[in-house]
């Protein structure tokens, strides 16, 4: 049995999803020879640390009851530097302006030779190359499937399953909130503002939905794909971005009458990175509804391959983190 000692940095929805999945998959992981021992859980107020393994069920109860797991006033970076473990699971919130705590956590992890699995887009959007270099210099594994499309496999699909294929382009719907808003606007013939309000009530859109509806979230995911799959040293500034805020129910209806839906489509190739509302034929593989994400990969040998799945949600995102963990430590 191989024991993987890890920390969970960031205990919001995703971090809690990871804890739940570890509890849920304990027996399965053991059946493939892996014991995952979480030695620290950190949130914005502090940490719970136990080198023998923290009680994840207790952490979940305390987080929901007290809104924090903090038993000690110690930061993520301090945990990385002072607690012995192999893997940092980095699930702090995305900040695309500075990289936030995630940026410091990742560099600190590589400096101490730890592996990193993350769902945090910010640091990868801002400093992809530097992070990869730091990981390489440390001999650390660095995986981030959960940053693009949640549970929908795209990075690992291309880099591992489709290895050897040259990828020409990737197009898709990479933001479930925008997809939900556009789907509902068409179904209800309701205005953008009305459906946005509904999405906020349902918790599909954030209180500040700017990142989603202005296309920024999609653009960040494309930057990660441009770097990870096309090897382009791209940043957010290389992306042409148009969001969905101007789309009207009338436009959706007219398009539908001509056999099209309007979707926020992100597109990345060696030549360009682009986000904009586009007309998609209703029977096209990318014309998925609701909060679903979808990506179509155009490959040299295998033709076009389309994957679809839930782009968000704690358990779905944790599923991508779990697959990264098994990819690193499984036999």
């Amino acid at each position, binding site marked *: 049995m191989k024991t993987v000692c890890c920390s969970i940095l960031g205990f919001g929805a995703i971090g809690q999803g990871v804890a739940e999945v570890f509890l849920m998959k304990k027996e399965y992981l053991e059946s493939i020879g892996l014991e995952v021992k979480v030695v620290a859980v950190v949130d914005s107020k502090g940490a719970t640390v136990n080198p023998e393994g923290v009680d994840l069920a207790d952490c979940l109860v305390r987080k929901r009851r007290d809104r924090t797991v903090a038993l000690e006033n110690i930061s993520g970076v301090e945990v990385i530097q002072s607690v012995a473990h192999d893997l940092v699971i980095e699930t702090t919130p995305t900040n695309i302006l500075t990289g936030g705590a995630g940026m410091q956590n990742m560099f600190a992890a590589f400096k101490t030779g730890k592996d990193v699995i993350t769902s945090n887009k910010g640091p990868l959007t801002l400093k992809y190359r530097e992070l990869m270099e730091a990981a390489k210099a440390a001999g650390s594994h660095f995986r981030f499937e959960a940053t693009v499309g949640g549970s929908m496999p795209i990075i690992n699909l291309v880099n591992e399953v489709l290895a050897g294929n040259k990828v020409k382009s990737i*197009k898709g719907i990479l933001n479930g909130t925008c997809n939900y808003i556009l789907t509902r606007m068409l179904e209800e013939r309701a205005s953008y503002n009305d459906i946005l309000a509904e999405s906020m009530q349902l918790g599909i859109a954030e209180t500040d939905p700017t990142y989603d509806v202005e296309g920024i979230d999609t653009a960040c995911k494309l930057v990660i794909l441009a770097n990870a799959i096309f090897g382009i040293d791209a940043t957010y500034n290389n992306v042409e971005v*148009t969001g969905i805020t*101007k*789309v*009207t129910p*009338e*436009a959706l*209806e*007219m*398009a539908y*009458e*001509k056999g*099209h839906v*309007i*979707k926020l*489509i992100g*597109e990345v190739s060696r030549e360009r990175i*682009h986000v*904009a*509302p*586009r*007309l*998609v*034929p209703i029977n*096209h593989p*990318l014309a998925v509804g609701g909060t679903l994400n979808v990506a179509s990969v155009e490959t040299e040998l295998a033709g076009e391959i389309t994957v679809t799945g839930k782009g968000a949600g704690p358990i779905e995102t944790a599923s991508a983190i779990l697959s990264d963990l098994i990819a690193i430590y499984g036999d």
Partner: protein
Amino acid sequence: MRVSMDIELKDVPGQMLLALQPLSECKANLITVVHHHQKRTPRKTVPVKLVLETRPESIETIKAKLEENGIRVVRVGEHRFRESINVVLIGHVVHTGIQDTIDEIDRTGFAEVVDLSLSMPGINMLSSALMKIDAVGKEDLHKALAILKEVSAKKDLLMVLPIDIQA
């Protein structure tokens, strides 16, 4: 795309086969053949009108192969590369002068607006238009879209293009 082609055959046996062979080699789909055997051109050849469906890039190859076979190509249909596209415009489409937007495309000579659906839900609300544009060829279609993109930027209109078009 659909192409009409006027060719002339020598009045000797086996000419039609020589005319159809290049089409088959280039995988063109023959729609109609009108063989005016009773007519003669001043050059004593038989005029034949073909309508075929093929890829735009195959046209020149077909022409060259026909000529290699000794067949004269008199005319290739004017709208031989006809392309069509639907584009959605959202913004103050009418108040910023829809006629002027249409004119910008129409005056190119190689593209024109052939259909327009318009929705104006209220005087201060954004209007939406679905515009169908026809163009002589793919390249011309892209030129027309580039013009429309410029006009849309000036008028602060959101232009929604089909997914298979390079935006």
